[in-house]
């Protein structure tokens, strides 16, 4: 629901990096978005398209990499990847799992033209 404000934070990073490297254009951005981050990729793309107008990233390609839920089990030491909201260890069924992935909101890579 707060995709637009998140995109504003993405642009802070883009502008900082473009300035740092004296780049005129940003051509590609890779974002890692955890499936549990509360961020909807489709809405993020729409927000990005609204925000980019008149910026050095106007023609940039936005790539969103979805990160599925990763669980670590303190009982058996196993790790589990989940696509759904089942927070249990695949190996031993324990529900005392620790969530180690799936909440990411990360600017991973930026491609610049200098």
């Amino acid at each position, binding site marked *: *629901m*707060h995709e637009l*404000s*998140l995109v504003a*934070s*993405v642009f802070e*990073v883009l502008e900082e*990096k473009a300035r740092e*490297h004296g*780049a005129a254009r940003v*051509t*590609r951005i890779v974002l890692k978005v955890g499936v*549990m*981050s*509360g961020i909807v990729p489709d809405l993020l793309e729409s927000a990005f398209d609204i925000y980019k107008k008149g910026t050095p990233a106007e023609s940039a390609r936005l790539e969103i990499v979805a990160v599925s839920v990763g669980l670590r089990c303190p009982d058996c030491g196993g790790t589990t990847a989940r696509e759904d*909201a089942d*927070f249990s260890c695949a190996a031993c069924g324990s*529900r*005392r799992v620790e*969530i180690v992935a799936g*909440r*990411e*909101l*990360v*600017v*991973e*890579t*930026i*491609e*610049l*033209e*200098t």
Partner: protein
Amino acid sequence: MTTKTLTVVRDLLATNKQAAAAIREELRTRGILGVNLLSSPGSGKTTLLEALADRFRDRRRMAVIEGDIETERDAERIRAKGVPAWQITTGGACHLEARMVGKVLGQVPAEIDFLFIENVGNLVCPASYDLGEDLRLVLLSSPEGDDKPAKYPQAFLSADALVLTKTDLLPYLPFDPDRAAAEALSIKPGLKVFAVSALRGDGVDGLAAWLVEALGRLRSDRA
């Protein structure tokens, strides 16, 4: 013209996480238990805080930060109970962020026991934002239906306690408190569950006692 690929790896929530860590540190140093309340609009967060204010009167000191999109209404209700309250109006934003809480923190009196932060009514976005609280309560009122935990797993997963509210309406609704609690516990084992009617005062003592215990733990850890 050359193309350069930069590996950035910048966490977009890092600013919030840092602000939250600073708040948590300050509250712990001051011996104040921070409690973040999450729920849908109208599930009874403010009414629960009013009931806690009555319960703690002359025994424990509390303060409240109210988060809403518009109006001072909630803060006024809390002040009417003799409890200091600050209203943050987000002007449209769907959740509170730690930075907003940090701005108010300096005005919060030093000699209080509990700082309650009533988040914007929304069972989705507030779950992703740490406000530096020690405990997070998620409220679910009986009119909302007992099928909500699995529909909004993040809120329940991130909470320390579930407060089932408006139990006085149970005779009129198909809400099954055991089913709601079981579903929430399947998402978050160990979640503490309370059932209250803030209007009647049922169950408020149990919740208040649990908060006092948590305060005791916070202060003994600090000592």
